[in-house]
């Protein structure tokens, strides 16, 4: 069975289950089910926002309210049929989200949460004060939903009407999570800076997901209005937002299936406990029931912070057979020759042909300066880097090498100076701008996407080399492109000799291996300028040899490489030119031979072996003299 068909099984199962439930369950249970599905729609949207965009909405009820009120006005006042009014109501919610998100999603942190909290209050006040919207009593007397010649006014019928809506809503959301957009957003959650450096425009994607999530809430509002046949300010209440939030948290943060299951669980707890508690504790009053409800939720959150989704994955891990690949031997032995052959093949897949001719200037740095308060981290650096060369940036710790990288790639704005990439100014722009121009990087401190596998990390780098947008991903019209992403990402993984680890969660890998994944990820972008921040750190001698070999091959395909590295021997063997920074200033620039013999560089950075050995001997002698009288007590 093809994996694509296998991916549809859960949805078919869900549809069958919902239909059987509607037909078989008692009336009052189906009634609870209707609410679970309505709120579930909003929860699916919120789970996308929280899981993919990493943002919380504390006022999701506002979007439900906008959808519900719009629908109510259109149907009862403008006499539009359901099918014409519903899309307008959904779009109204999305427009409100767009207006809120446009300024706020540029900011990092919890601004969106606060703003949506405020939005919830504003919408609540507006509908309460507005005469046209019925003030506190709201709009009532909506006609029962009739559609396709049928009227849906019993719980069972309404549930059956909601079933395809939920199944399709789930299907679209799950597809989105697995699509190019979903992958990029989840990468942003793990490491925004790394995702940006791979060309992901985080703001644009977050905004789209926020608007989409409001659309789901708006649709929930439409069905809410028709089911209750009355819309009043209670729909805007904070409790409703909290309830939706609870559904997502309980179900498992950011998992779409979790949101639906969370919706059922919260609704069942909410309604079911109220009926159950008086039976268990005779004479229990409302407050006692609410306390019981709260206690259960607190317990769940303490015992299962990952929600029901976590419980499910634990059960599945228990049931699954032990993976033979995970037992004993870590990976297959592969000879160096085989590896190099694989690399050649991979570079064949990845090599771009449109690199600028060797010798043309591709990166022009002028007067680049960074000051933090009184400290000058980088002082007036000017450097011209031409296509097809390997330039190494060396210098003592804290000399400003990484700061220079950060400004070239847009991670930090410079205090002064300019960085021109292929003639275009990138200083002060976001990293995805430089990435778009073909410059990407690795990081000194790991910036991997921890929630996914090795291959998953590398696939993110194909973002710029693929096009499928949010909608195409949602309806699975991106299959051919996804297959291409898979092939190219795999090629980059092979190139770094990580083939055997491709499907391992990256968090399980040793530190140095994770660094190699970063290099694979950068290669997968098919950059014209590759910036590597200490690529050799944490690698063993043999691994360093392979990496040097690989970088020469990459250079041969026309890629320009700038690297910061402390392994002087490797640097000198690899680089065409070496730039030495000390205390923020460029103190030497030239061929490896020129630089290694520069007395300034030796004093500031390299040191001499004789020096080090002399220190050891001196220290040892001093210590022996100091501790001689004490020696006997040991």
């Amino acid at each position, binding site marked *: 069975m093809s994996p694509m068909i296998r991916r549809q099984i859960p949805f078919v199962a869900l549809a069958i289950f919902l239909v059987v439930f509607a037909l078989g369950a008692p009336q009052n249970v189906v009634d609870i089910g209707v609410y679970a599905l309505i709120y579930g729609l909003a929860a699916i949207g919120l789970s996308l926002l929280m899981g993919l965009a990493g943002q919380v909405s504390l006022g999701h009820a506002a979007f439900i309210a906008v959808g519900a009120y719009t629908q109510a006005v259109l149907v009862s006042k403008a006499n539009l049929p359901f099918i014409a009014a519903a899309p307008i109501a959904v779009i109204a919610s999305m427009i409100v989200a767009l207006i809120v998100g446009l300024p706020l999603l540029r900011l990092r942190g919890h601004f969106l949460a606060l703003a949506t909290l405020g939005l919830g209050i504003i919408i609540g006040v507006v509908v309460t004060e507005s005469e046209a919207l019925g003030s506190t009593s709201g709009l009532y007397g909506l006609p029962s939903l009739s559609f396709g010649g049928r009227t849906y006014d019993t719980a069972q019928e309404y549930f059956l009407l909601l079933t395809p809506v939920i199944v399709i809503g789930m299907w679209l959301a799950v597809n989105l999570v697995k699509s190019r957009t979903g992958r990029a957003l989840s990468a942003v959650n793990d490491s925004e800076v790394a995702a940006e450096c791979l060309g992901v425009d985080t703001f644009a994607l977050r905004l789209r997901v926020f608007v989409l999530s409001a659309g789901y809430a708006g649709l929930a509002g439409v069905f809410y209005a028709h089911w209750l046949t009355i819309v009043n300010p209670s729909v805007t209440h904070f409790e409703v937002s909290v309830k939706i939030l609870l559904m997502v948290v309980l179900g498992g943060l950011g998992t779409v299936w979790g949101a639906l299951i969370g919706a059922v669980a919260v609704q069942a707890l909410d309604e079911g406990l109220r009926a159950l508690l008086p039976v268990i504790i005779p004479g229990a009053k409302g407050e006692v029931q609410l306390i019981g409800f709260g206690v259960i939720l607190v317990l769940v959150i303490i015992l299962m912070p990952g929600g029901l989704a976590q419980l499910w994955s634990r059960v599945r891990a228990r049931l699954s057979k032990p993976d033979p690949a995970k037992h004993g031997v*870590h990976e297959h032995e592969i000879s160096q020759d085989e590896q190099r052959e694989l690399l050649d093949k991979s570079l064949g897949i990845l090599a771009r042909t449109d690199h600028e001719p060797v010798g043309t200037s591709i990166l022009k740095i002028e007067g680049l300066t960074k000051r933090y308060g009184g400290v000058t981290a980088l002082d007036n650096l000017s450097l011209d880097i031409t296509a097809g060369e390997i330039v190494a940036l060396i210098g*003592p710790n804290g000399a400003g090498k990484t700061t220079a990288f950060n400004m070239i790639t847009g991670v930090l704005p410079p205090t002064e100076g300019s960085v021109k990439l292929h003639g275009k100014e990138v200083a002060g722009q976001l990293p995805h701008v430089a990435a778009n121009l073909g410059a990407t990087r690795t990081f000194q401190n790991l910036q991997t996407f921890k929630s996914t596998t090795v291959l998953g990390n590398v696939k993110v780098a194909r973002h710029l080399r693929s096009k499928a947008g949010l909608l195409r991903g949602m309806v699975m019209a991106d299959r051919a492109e996804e297959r291409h992403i898979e092939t190219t990402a795999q090629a980059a993984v092979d190139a770094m000799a990580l083939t055997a680890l491709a499907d391992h969660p990256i968090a399980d890998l040793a*530190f140095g291996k994770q660094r190699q994944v970063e290099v694979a990820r950068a290669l997968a972008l098919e950059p014209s300028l590759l910036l590597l921040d200490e690529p050799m750190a944490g690698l063993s001698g043999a691994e360093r040899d392979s990496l040097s070999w690989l970088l020469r091959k990459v250079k041969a395909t026309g890629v320009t490489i700038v690297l910061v590295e402390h392994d002087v021997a490797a640097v000198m063997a690899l680089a065409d030119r070496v730039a030495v920074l000390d205390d923020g200033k460029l103190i030497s620039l030239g061929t490896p031979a020129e630089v290694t013999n520069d007395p300034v560089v030796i004093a500031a950075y390299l040191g001499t072996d004789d020096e080090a050995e002399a220190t050891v001997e001196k220290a040892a002698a001093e210590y022996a003299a100091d501790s001689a009288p*004490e020696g006997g007590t040991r």
Partner: protein
Amino acid sequence: MTARPPAGLTVTGLHAAYDRLQVLHGIDLTVAPGEVLALVGANGAGKTSVLRSVSGLLKPAKGTVKLGDTDITSFGAEKIASLGLAHVPENRLVFPTLTVEDNLVLGGYVRRKDGGFAERRAEALALFPRLNDRILLAAGALSGGEQQMLAMARALMSDPSVIILDEPSLGLAPKVVGEIMTALGILRNKGLAVLLVEQNVRAAFKVADRVMVMDRGRVVAEGTPAELASDERVRAAYLGGSSTSSSGVAAPVAPKAGPAAGS
């Protein structure tokens, strides 16, 4: 001084696993007082896992770990630290928002009831005089090399008899690597047992008395630096440096003299 009697480290038949992924398949090693044992090998070979098992951060599935004559296999990390085994982790992990001074105070936490703080502090700072000038700076503001020095000084505040270090040279300038290795030499001469995991083979070989090469959870070669450096097979398969990078072993180095007098 509150020096404890010298005690070595003995690991026998160590097996360890993360979940169901077995990473160590029977590791045997000893580090005597006044000795530096370097553990080298490719990434994922299990070097870090050995250190984590020794310091109680990873529960071994099988095997024993002894500190002197005490079996510490089943002890928790805090208890092991208080018995005199200090772990300097990968990436230093200093407390970035605390001052250098406070980092040192926390390093001495397991010894808080024993007194002698001032002496241990003076001794740790004597090893890295540079930290004296930065004593009131936030640790996060130090350069990479200074952070490594602080991580080691912090470890020494627990007055250990065994110190284990995970890649102290990571990301450091050659000059600083020299200083760090020098410090290790001094600690060895003071009678500490030093277990060093290091990718910078050249630097490690200079300071180590013995070297073990690990591959996929097993020890595959063992000897003095000179023996291993002159073994073509080991060099080609594990140490590198054959063609380009001389992070590997460029030439056999002279064997170190044994533990210094006085220990």
